[in-house]
């Protein structure tokens, strides 16, 4: 059969994509290990590796206890949390961009960030503790998306554009609610706390908080990765997907559910971090192409790498930490501009 002769380029494409993914895995691990040693209390790379290995193999301690505490109790949970948040935001962004057939969509398009911001501000205003803030942020983040989903039902349509519109409405509502809470907040203590939370930071991530979120986040990310073939069909168009044998409304619901869970959890442990979910999928598309089979894992890997890199800058650039949400915007916008320039033919 002549089709066999056409096979080399396909396989070639496959291995090229795979190679890119493996490079991203190695890049992520390298950045992760380097980031463990970086900070105001610097630790040499060999000591970083020794400290990590000493937890698995019995070793002679050639380092002091502070070093070990900084690496294992402060930086390790922060980096693990940062990786989860970065991967989640980028994965949810890539998933939504495919599902909405729109490369300009970000994970908070359905209102999850505004909802979570409102929830966190409410908890801060009511004087709740760290746990209360996280639960309130999670609750209102998910509630906002549910509201958007049912608002579309009120419009009596199944169009994804109307879902975006519903998301805009819900976001607008919660943003106003947030402004109201800021207006009511004590300007000396609560208001700065709200503002800081909204700017996002990985600083408060520790092992206890990580323990409760890791499983649901990994489950959500895994679920989204499994939807990658369906996402390919959905990104062609709802009708096209339907006629290819995809149950469109059910697949959409699953994707929204998974993306919302991982975004909401990310927001509740790190505050609102913008731009990652929008820019990273573009970067990934540039490197491995548009096929979600490779785009989704690439987005997750790049998202995790980018966020811990930016967090390194946030930790090291000045004596007081810069909120990471500011950095993602400052670094993200020029990269996004470059990406748009390179893809303007496809976008216009």
């Amino acid at each position: 059969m002549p089709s066999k002769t056409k096979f080399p380029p396909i396989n070639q494409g496959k291995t090229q994509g795979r190679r890119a993914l493996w490079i991203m895995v190695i890049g992520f691990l390298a950045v992760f290990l380097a980031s463990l040693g970086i900070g105001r209390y610097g630790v040499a790379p060999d000591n970083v590796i020794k400290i990590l290995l000493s937890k698995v193999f019995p070793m002679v301690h050639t380092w002091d206890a502070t070093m070990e505490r900084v690496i294992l109790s402060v930086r390790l949970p922060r980096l693990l949390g940062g990786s989860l948040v970065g991967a989640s935001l980028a994965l949810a962004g890539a998933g939504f961009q495919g599902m909405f057939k729109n490369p300009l969509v970000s994970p908070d398009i359905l209102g999850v960030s505004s909802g979570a911001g409102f929830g966190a501000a409410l908890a801060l205003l009511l004087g709740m503790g760290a746990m209360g803030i996280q639960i309130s942020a999670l609750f209102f983040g998910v509630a906002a998306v549910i509201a958007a989903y049912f608002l579309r039902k009120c419009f009596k349509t199944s169009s994804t554009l109307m879902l975006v519109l519903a998301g805009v409405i819900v976001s607008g509502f919660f943003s106003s609610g947030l402004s109201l809470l800021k207006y009511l907040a004590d300007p000396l203590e609560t208001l700065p706390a709200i503002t800081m939370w909204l700017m996002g930071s990985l600083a408060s991530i520790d092992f206890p908080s990580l323990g409760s979120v890791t499983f649901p986040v990994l489950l959500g990310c895994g679920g989204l990765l499994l939807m990658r073939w369906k996402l390919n069909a959905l990104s062609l168009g709802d009708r096209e997907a339907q006629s290819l044998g995809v149950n469109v409304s059910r697949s959409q619901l699953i994707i929204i559910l998974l993306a919302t869970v991982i975004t909401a959890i990310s927001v509740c442990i790190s505050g609102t971090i913008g731009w990652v979910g929008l820019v990273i999928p573009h970067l990934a598309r540039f490197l491995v192409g548009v096929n979600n089979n490779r785009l989704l894992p690439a987005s997750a890997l790049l998202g995790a790498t980018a966020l811990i890199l930016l967090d390194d800058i946030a930790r090291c650039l000045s004596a007081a930490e810069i909120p990471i949400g500011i950095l993602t915007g400052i670094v993200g916008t020029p990269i996004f501009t470059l990406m748009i320039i390179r893809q303007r033919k496809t976008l216009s």
Partner: protein
Amino acid sequence: MKLTVESLSFSYPDGPPVFENISFSLAEGEVLAILGSNGTGKSTLLNCVANQALPSRGQILIDGIPTREMTAVQLAQRLAYVPQMHHPMFAYRVLDVVVMGRIAYLGALRGPGSEDYDLAMEMLELMGVAALSEKSYLEISGGERQLVLFAQALTQQPRFLVLDEPTSHLDFGNQIRCLEVIQSMAEQGIGILLSTHFPDHSLMFRHKVCVLHEGRIMATGPAEQVIIQENMERIYRIPIQVTKDVATGRMVCLPQKGDSKR
């Protein structure tokens, strides 16, 4: 296998019926062309047949089983649908677009394997566009895109194919090439339902024709019996001569200028 449309009606909520009481059947290997003026509900009818829109009354049966009782996967294994115009957003590789036709066979979570890529490649070759396989779906022409979507639909290995105005956006030559491809698909046993604005095409390829007028079927039958002056003038509201072309011996429709109020 037979596709049967039984007394199908469709109306938008609180609106007048778009079409009413439409019945026809389509056998494997047959081409049925729906003719009708703009806005008579051809696309809506095809959407209903392809389960993209919900009819207000009536049903569609494939081999006696109502399509509404089938899952998306079950329907996709029997019927493929190529919509009128496709505006893709993402630069998929052509072969990746075609292999998406296998989704109905892959189960919930599996990706396509090498035999699926083989089949997709084979279908691209059948459509004569194998050379496009590695190109970006955004960078090929409208005519090429149509053939790629046909290849995708064939990769679905359906018994029936629903094509919404397959020739409308193609140039003069591509229209005929496209119809030849449709003919060859029918010869392989696929039943094809298409809508068209070109009665000449149906005369040329001896389609079975169904004339839709004001939401009802005005006439059904072989092209030469249905595409007659009276029917054509009624649906298109211009004077039309249907005559035999001496050179080719084929019946052709010749629209005339003038009295457009008829």
